[in-house]
């Protein structure tokens, strides 16, 4: 039976083309792979090959014809021994191949109706003082004791005991099979860790700082974050990428960047940025147990700071649950990571001026606890966000948009974003201070939204 040879699509975007030249004529025998015609697309002239063996019956579209739609019959192909017969009428319209597109369903609701206000640990739990550094180490050690497949890899994590001493003692306890020093090749070892996660392990990758993770960001995003989706749920990367993020002190532009907003943009990643030692511990334990890739953003300045940590056997903090550090009635301050230091200091000073600020620590940036923020803003009617990162496309921008969409009628002033300034980090001590967000910036912003 004669089959139709159709005008092919020769690029992802081609809808029509010019049939420049026929290289066969009616009655020619052709074999799979023979060139039948030259076709001009908007980008190039392409050779069009036969995919079946047979004899050219009728040429339906003469050479030189422009604007031939994809899927138009351009010739007929006969099986060996078949007669050509009468030429069929050229197909006027191409075969429709794209089914009608339904409207995209709405995203599953992200804003739950109730904020989770349950305490992180039971009332009366004994507390101990611990630095953020010690809390992070304990979290890793506890999870490594509990799961043989958890291992730590990164630069200087083993023999050197951690560039910032976060992994102190882990080599002694777990040995070199599970605490692995890598060469200084972030792209390569991040990729190896993602592959190991595909293969059933639970890697914890320490970046000496997240600035160096830019070398590895393709593996983090294209390989770790997207594979679960691209595989239709068959396989993903249960792992943690952790290390210090943001500015330390006087280390210049390439070592002083906050990546919170970058990673928070990526579906498939979870993003955590703790402030206190208790949160660092409880959230890192949750991160290691999570079956997804987690970005865990620490801060060098906070490593040595001490906080109360619950002395509990197995203590975790769930993702997507903000913490209200201070209740207040006049304005809501929303922050995370080291930004919390400025938010809390500002709240204390504002109290002296008779302004009562509620201070919320988001703790995780993907998922974000919108509900706790919205509930607070509906009470205070004012909001100021605080973060160290740059202003364009910041977490604060995103919160301001969300508050505008969900609580517009409750606002008595525009939401203001306190961020780092829109400059690479300078080295000079005075300029560095000017580049970073400060407690005073927060106070000024609060006075502005409270019209004081």
């Amino acid at each position, binding site marked *: 039976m004669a089959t139709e040879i*159709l005008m*092919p*699509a*020769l*690029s*992802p975007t*081609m809808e029509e083309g010019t049939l420049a030249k026929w290289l066969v004529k009616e009655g020619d025998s052709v074999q*799979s*792979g023979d060139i039948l015609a030259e076709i001009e697309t908007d*980008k*190039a002239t392409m*050779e*069009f*090959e036969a*995919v079946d063996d047979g004899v050219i019956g009728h040429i339906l579209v003469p050479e030189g014809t422009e604007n031939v739609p*994809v*899927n138009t019959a351009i010739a007929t192909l006969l099986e060996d021994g078949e007669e050509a017969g009468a030429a069929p009428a050229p197909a006027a319209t191409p*075969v429709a*191949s794209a*089914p009608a597109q339904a*409207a*995209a*369903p709405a995203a*599953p609701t992200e804003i739950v109706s109730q904020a989770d206000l349950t305490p992180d640990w039971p009332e009366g739990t004994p507390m101990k003082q611990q630095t953020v550094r010690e809390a992070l180490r304990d979290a890793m050690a506890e999870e490594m004791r509990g799961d043989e497949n958890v291992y730590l890899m990164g630069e200087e994590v083993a023999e050197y005991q951690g560039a910032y001493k976060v992994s102190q003692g882990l080599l002694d306890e777990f040995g070199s*099979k599970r605490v692995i020093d*890598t*060469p200084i*090749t972030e*792209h*390569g*070892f*991040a*990729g*190896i860790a*993602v*592959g*190991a*996660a*595909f*293969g*059933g*392990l639970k890697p914890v990758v320490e970046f000496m700082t997240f600035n160096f993770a830019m070398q590895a960001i*393709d*593996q983090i995003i*294209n*390989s770790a974050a997207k*594979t*679960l*989706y*691209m*595989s*239709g749920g*068959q*396989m*993903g990367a249960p792992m943690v990428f952790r290390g210090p993020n943001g500015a330390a002190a006087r280390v210049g532009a390439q070592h002083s960047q906050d990546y919170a907003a970058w990673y928070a943009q990526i*579906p*498939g990643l*979870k993003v955590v940025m703790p402030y206190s030692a208790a949160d660092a511990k409880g959230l890192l334990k949750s991160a290691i147990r999570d*079956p*997804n890739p987690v970005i865990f953003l620490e801060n060098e300045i906070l490593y040595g700071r001490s906080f109360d940590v619950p002395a509990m056997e197995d203590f975790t903090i769930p993702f997507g649950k903000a913490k209200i550090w201070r209740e207040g009635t006049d304005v809501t301050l929303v922050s995370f990571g080291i930004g919390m230091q400025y938010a809390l200091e500002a709240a204390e000073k504002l109290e002296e001026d008779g302004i009562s600020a509620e201070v919320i620590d988001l703790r995780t940036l993907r998922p974000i606890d919108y509900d706790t923020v919205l509930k607070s803003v509906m009470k205070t009617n004012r909001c100021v966000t605080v973060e160290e990162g740059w202003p364009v496309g910041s977490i604060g921008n995103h919160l301001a948009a969300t508050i505008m969409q969900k609580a517009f009628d409750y606002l008595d002033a525009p939401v203001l974003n306190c961020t780092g300034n829109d400059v690479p980090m300078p080295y000079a001590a005075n300029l560095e201070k000017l580049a970073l967000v400060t407690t005073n910036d927060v106070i000024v912003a609060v006075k502005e939204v409270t019209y004081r």
Partner: protein
Amino acid sequence: MAAKKPAAKTNVSGEELQKFYREMLLIRRFEEKAGQLYGMGLIGGFCHLYIGQEAVVVGLEAAAEEGDKRITSYRDHGHMLACGMDPNGVMAELTGREGGYSKGKGGSMHMFSKEKHFYGGHGIVGAQVPLGAGLAFADKYKGNGRVTFTYFGDGAANQGQVYETFNMAALWDLPVVFVIENNQYAMGTAQQRSTSSPDIHTRGESFGIPGEAVDGMDVLAVKDAGERAVAHCRKGKGPYILEVKTYRYRGHSMSDPAKYRTREEVQKMREERDAIDHVRQLLIDGKHASEEDLKAVDKEIKAIVSASADFAKESPLPAAEELWTDIYAEAT
């Protein structure tokens, strides 16, 4: 095309030759059909065909054992068919349908099968190389004796992350076979215009990784080299490099006008070095199969491919709700 190891000495049964013939022919016919469906607009986006390179995966799969892993780039259809994945599921993924391996959400470049230990299907040139070493890292950690085949092209062989990976794979004795499928063109750039030294298999030397060049148009030579590489890895001696010299008959992707090489060059390779013709000749010459036997195989393969195309056209589009699934795994 320089072939270092002649295949003549390989002791191969008629049965095995028939298996190779069938598997290579399946890939070729499948790819031809995919090209046809692309032309009809049923397959969209990028589509990279494996036609010409069939002996590489078929020969290496013959050296693999159950449980061994494989990972490759976006030119992945042949690898999936060779490791036993269902042609229906692969073709339906190409058409972006519910019955595809990734439920239509991955496409030509992104398919996976946990069951067949196939780990993708990766679209960023060279990114699969550390991922493959990572799979081998996990196997070594577990001590399960498995080997990972990590495939990449001569173009990817110039990526920096490949050398970061060679270093760590050698440092940690990872059981990984790095298979460089040298089809002589990095997209449209010929090897001599992109690569300072033509012998890519020697690129592991400074890391202490042994490597050899293999005639990739000879499935028996590929299998032979594959067995040497796998034995090396399984003995705990670390990685091994195979530079398999092959040739891609079609363009880099469907939208490649292929102006960087002559039609005659392609034609010469097809006529003189075709891997399927080679096995066909061995079957006939060795009286392992008659012309009629092979015709029957051709017919059978055509039917499998035709059924896969029908399945891929009939399988429904994924439900709109699938937009929001598989972004995050739930804790178990």
